[in-house]
């Protein structure tokens, strides 16, 4: 895999979620994603960045622009050292929420991207990786 550029963003508060959203948009444009694909990826990034802040107690978002011809796109990795997710299958179901959300964040984000992977251990944290390519 050829990663053209990579950058790590801190996710601590509301404003950081906005920063990750905006960076994702700029990078998605650079990678040549269509407007609909950009919008889907930015929306998924917003959901997952918020999860990292609210449920993970903060963490990081890593953006990677990759050129694996013919696949050219963007990979985003959200990591936290929060409480983790006990039942991942359940957490991916629409309507499941432990907090004040609508329970669409995880399952909804998965529908918006080409590739979705989640690793989590109770007590150790969560890592969600998503990718969208043209």
């Amino acid at each position: 895999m050829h990663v053209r550029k990579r950058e790590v963003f801190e996710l601590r508060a509301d404003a950081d979620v906005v920063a990750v959203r905006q960076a994702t948009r700029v990078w998605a444009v650079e990678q040549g994603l269509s407007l609909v694909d950009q919008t889907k990826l930015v929306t998924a990034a917003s959901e997952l960045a918020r999860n990292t802040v609210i449920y993970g107690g903060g963490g990081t978002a890593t953006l990677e622009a990759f050129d694996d011809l013919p696949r050219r796109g963007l990979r985003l990795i959200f990591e936290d050292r929060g409480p983790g997710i006990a039942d991942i299958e359940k957490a991916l179901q629409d309507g499941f929420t432990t907090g004040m959300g609508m329970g669409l964040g995880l399952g909804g984000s998965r529908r918006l991207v080409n590739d979705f992977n989640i690793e989590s251990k109770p007590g150790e944290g969560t890592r969600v990786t998503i990718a969208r390519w043209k």
Partner: protein
Amino acid sequence: MERIPILRMGTFLLVTIQVDMHDRLATALQDDLTTRIAEVGARGVLIDISSLEIVDSFIGRMLANIAGMARVLDAETVVVGMRPAVAITLVELGLSLTGVRTALSVEKGMAILQASQQHAFTIPELDAPENEETDDSTEHARSQT
């Protein structure tokens, strides 16, 4: 703290969201709008989201909340100007904004609000008693006394 301005036009309140809102700003708008509806006795709320590049589940919930609270306070809400890419994403995300009136443009949104006003004014006439025809016993008893 920064706030999204709310304009008043007659009995309507107008909001144009022109910034990438962080969550607290969205929550503040929800609170401010609800307060203003009650303060001025607004009958309609128009929210222009044509500048919004995304609507995620948090913003979607805020729009649904505003429409719900406005309804309880006897005001109609119309959300206008959603971009096509945003609409596609929103539905795929799983949000259908049930209960939120939408229109393609500010002009069409205003027309909906104005029409709902005219409808509201006609209700007293529609509800006028037709006591001759009624077979409701209490109504009947009252007309005899």
